[in-house]
């Protein structure tokens, strides 16, 4: 749906009447706010860089725990309950088998944090960690592996459920306004993403890899939940743009390309950027010869129409589950002496990409993962050239990175003061075995055996070259999401249950705190009452830190 400028003006002037103390002022979404964290990445750029510097290198030693919020999911007493599934039976846990892990980046608006785990949304006082309300969704199924958080429009919140509903809540009370099914759980779709609100668009995506279904992105009306536009990740029929990259209509209609993670947005260009998922069947490519557009691609969509403006495919004809669902980070830099609007992504396949975000033109493709062994370099357009000998085979092929990738969904960070792009990476190998040799394979079509590797690393990448400027090899596990601040700090989990502050210039460790669980989300920061808070999720706890008085 296209919105006429006049209608938009009316909409904007109507805002003050709608706004209450708790509502999100939409103007905040167009800035880089310090007194709020109004959208998944803190702002639309995906940089996860805060201009706050009250907490800085000089005083980080005084950073202390302010509060802990312990999230108890499920049909708890006092929870507001919705959903289309069966009630939780007495004695039955409504938690999930993956354990409760706060992977969401909470929004913080007007002193209230809003966070999620699959089927659950909470409002928590950002000053004290006190719970204000809890909403629980009775599920019909779907894989309950994680949820990235809520989107907010005025007084309304939106979150997605594993059984593919978008649920809208009243931010004041947690009371449900409506819910709307966007995909069919019986086809093994399951949704993890955080809605992103842009103007009067609520952008939602979905996931699912088990039964070969097509991916899409939808824009919903924030008041009614009605669909404004829908963009499919694949052409729908022969003759459509991109259809030349598939052998037939059947393969493209079952072609995957999930929209697992929230995208980024340039308000000047009015383009929404998202990385699409892998093609399906996931690891058996024999029924989908060709590049399989627009899977494993960074795409730019017109925010008002959902029309594709440009695409850049990161893994043509992928057979290793290397979706492009890593945050496409928007940054402004100087290339060849000229200021450019840029987009940077550290991709699951081991390459770092720098694109011109107006045109999609590739500027840098550099293999940041030293063990990467699946590509024969890049073509003239910067697109990696797969080595077909490394596609899964019956007898097994040794590939790095494994399907889990050189990196994955956890959000990276870009610090405009250092000019460095920070990302957690893993240098591992797997043996991939083709198990479905049918001309029409289904599902994954291959098995994978993890085969060790060289461990996990936090690295700082020069966005102009893709080269690693410094690296910190983590003796334990890997990082989750990252945050940089104007206090010259880089915050990261270390995979050994600590939150660590690094010097973003050189990787020197400046501070750490043991949390008892691994950091699971991207840390965030905000200012309240003149005090800078640092908030991070680890396991089922949310931890807030402030400077000791």
């Amino acid at each position, binding site marked *: 749906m296209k919105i006429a400028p006049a209608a938009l003006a009316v909409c904007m002037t109507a805002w003050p009447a709608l706004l209450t103390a708790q509502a999100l002022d939409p103007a905040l979404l167009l800035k880089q706010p310090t007194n709020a964290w109004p959208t998944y990445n803190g702002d639309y750029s995906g940089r996860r860089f805060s201009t706050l510097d009250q907490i800085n290198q000089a005083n980080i030693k005084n950073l202390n725990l302010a509060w802990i919020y312990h999230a108890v999911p499920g049909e708890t007493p006092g929870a507001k309950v919705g959903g289309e599934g*069966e009630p939780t039976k007495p004695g039955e*846990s*409504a938690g999930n088998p993956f354990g409760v892990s706060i992977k969401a980046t909470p929004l913080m608006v007007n002193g209230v944090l809003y966070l999620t785990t699959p089927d659950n949304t909470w409002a928590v006082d950002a000053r004290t960690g006190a719970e204000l309300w809890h909403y629980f969704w009775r599920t*019909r199924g779907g894989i309950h592996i994680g949820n990235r958080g809520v989107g907010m429009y005025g007084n309304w919140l939106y979150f997605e459920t594993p059984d593919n509903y978008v649920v809208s809540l009243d931010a004041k009370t947690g009371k449900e306004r409506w819910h709307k099914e966007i995909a069919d759980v019986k086809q093994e779709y399951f949704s993890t993403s955080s809605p992103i609100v842009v103007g009067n668009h609520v952008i939602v995506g979905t996931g699912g890899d088990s039964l070969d279904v097509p991916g899409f992105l939808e824009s919903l009306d924030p008041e009614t939940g009605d669909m404004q536009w829908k963009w499919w990740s694949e052409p729908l029929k022969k003759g459509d743009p991109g259809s030349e990259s598939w052998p037939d209509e059947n393969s493209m209609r079952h072609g995957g390309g999930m929209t697992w993670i929230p995208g980024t947005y340039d308000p000047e260009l009015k383009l929404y950027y998202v990385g699409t998922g892998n093609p399906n069947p996931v690891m058996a490519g024999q029924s989908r010869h060709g590049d399989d557009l627009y899977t494993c691609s960074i795409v730019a969509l017109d925010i008002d129409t959902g029309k594709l403006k440009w695409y850049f495919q990161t893994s043509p004809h992928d057979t290793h589950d290397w979706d492009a669902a890593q945050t496409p980070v928007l940054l402004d830099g100087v290339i060849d002496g000229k200021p450019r609007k840029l987009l940077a992504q550290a991709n699951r396949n081991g390459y770092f990409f720098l694109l011109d975000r107006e045109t999609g033109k590739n500027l840098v493709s550099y293999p940041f993962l030293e063990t990467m062994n699946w590509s024969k370099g890049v073509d003239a357009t910067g697109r990696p050239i797969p080595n077909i000998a490394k596609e899964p085979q019956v007898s*097994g092929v040794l590939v790095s990175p494994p399907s889990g990738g050189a990196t994955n969904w956890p959000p990276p960070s870009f610090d405009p003061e250092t000019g460095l792009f920070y990302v957690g990476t893993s240098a591992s190998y797997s043996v991939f075995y083709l198990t479905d040799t*049918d001309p029409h394979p289904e599902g994954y079509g291959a098995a994978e055996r993890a085969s060790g590797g060289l461990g996990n690393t936090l690295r700082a990448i020069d966005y102009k070259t893709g080269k690693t400027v410094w690296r910190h090899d983590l003796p334990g596990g890997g990082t989750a999401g990252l945050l940089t601040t104007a206090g010259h700090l880089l915050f990261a989990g*270390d995979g050994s249950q600590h939150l660590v502050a690094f010097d973003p210039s050189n990787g020197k460790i400046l501070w750490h705190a043991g949390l008892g669980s691994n950091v699971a989300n991207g840390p965030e920061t905000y200012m309240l009452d003149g005090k800078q808070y640092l908030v991070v999720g680890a396991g089922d706890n949310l931890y807030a830190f402030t400077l000791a008085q």
Partner: protein
Amino acid sequence: MIHFVKPCRVALVLLSGIGFQMMAQAPPGQTPPAPARHVGGGLGSEYKAYDAATLERGKKTYTANCAFCHGGNAKGGESGPDLLRSLTVLHDENGEMIGKVVLNGRPDKGMPKFGFGPEQIADISAFLHDGVRAAAERGTYKILDIMVGDAKAGQAYFNGAGGCTSCHSVTGDLAHAGSKYEPVDLQQKIVMPREGRGRRTASDKAMAVTVTVTLPSGEVVNGILNRMDDFAISLVDQNGDYRSFSRDGDVPKVELHDPMNAHTALLKRYTDADIHNLTAYLETLK
């Protein structure tokens, strides 16, 4: 009964970026709610488990009546669509939707009616639902025959370029390796013997990482590594005592000895043929 599927660990890791163990079992003795394939409680994908006799009957009936159009594996044929991707099948619970189509046919699409009884419809439905399960449940995929290597070339690599003889002997630790392990397990052990993605701690002591910690006092502590991060290291010493030390940069001095280092180094050097050849060679050690 409802069978709570165990998703493949790798699948979970790729989505979460963080590894974890999984539950797998349905509570014993619990009768499932009648029609639900996906049940409440948020446990993810759940597929019914059917007994072998039902599936065998279903396959027979299917093969005799349906395969001509829908293909032997139900993935579609000359004139009938893929049934494993059929919305009717995916939304069916116990044959109630599949049965309607079978009994009434789809005259507009040229599908005739079949006068099956309720048992036959239940059997065909079970067969189709199990086909969907087999596609979706990646943890149950069977690895096929992987033996393509050249045993002679594998022997040469073992004794030469691979450097395997510096630790292993085909008459010592690897004697009868070919009788002990299926080829795919053997191949996995060749590539990375230690389980758990090559983690440093191992239940098998011979594969565990050992560590030498030299304290500022000059005291030297040796043991099996328990855990290490940037801020602490812990180990179990020769007496079985647990010891842990704070770390601050290079103090105390920590030296790790990982018996898997040679295997890790090979990951970068191997061709896939080297791996297949080694597997073929070690499989000859009966």
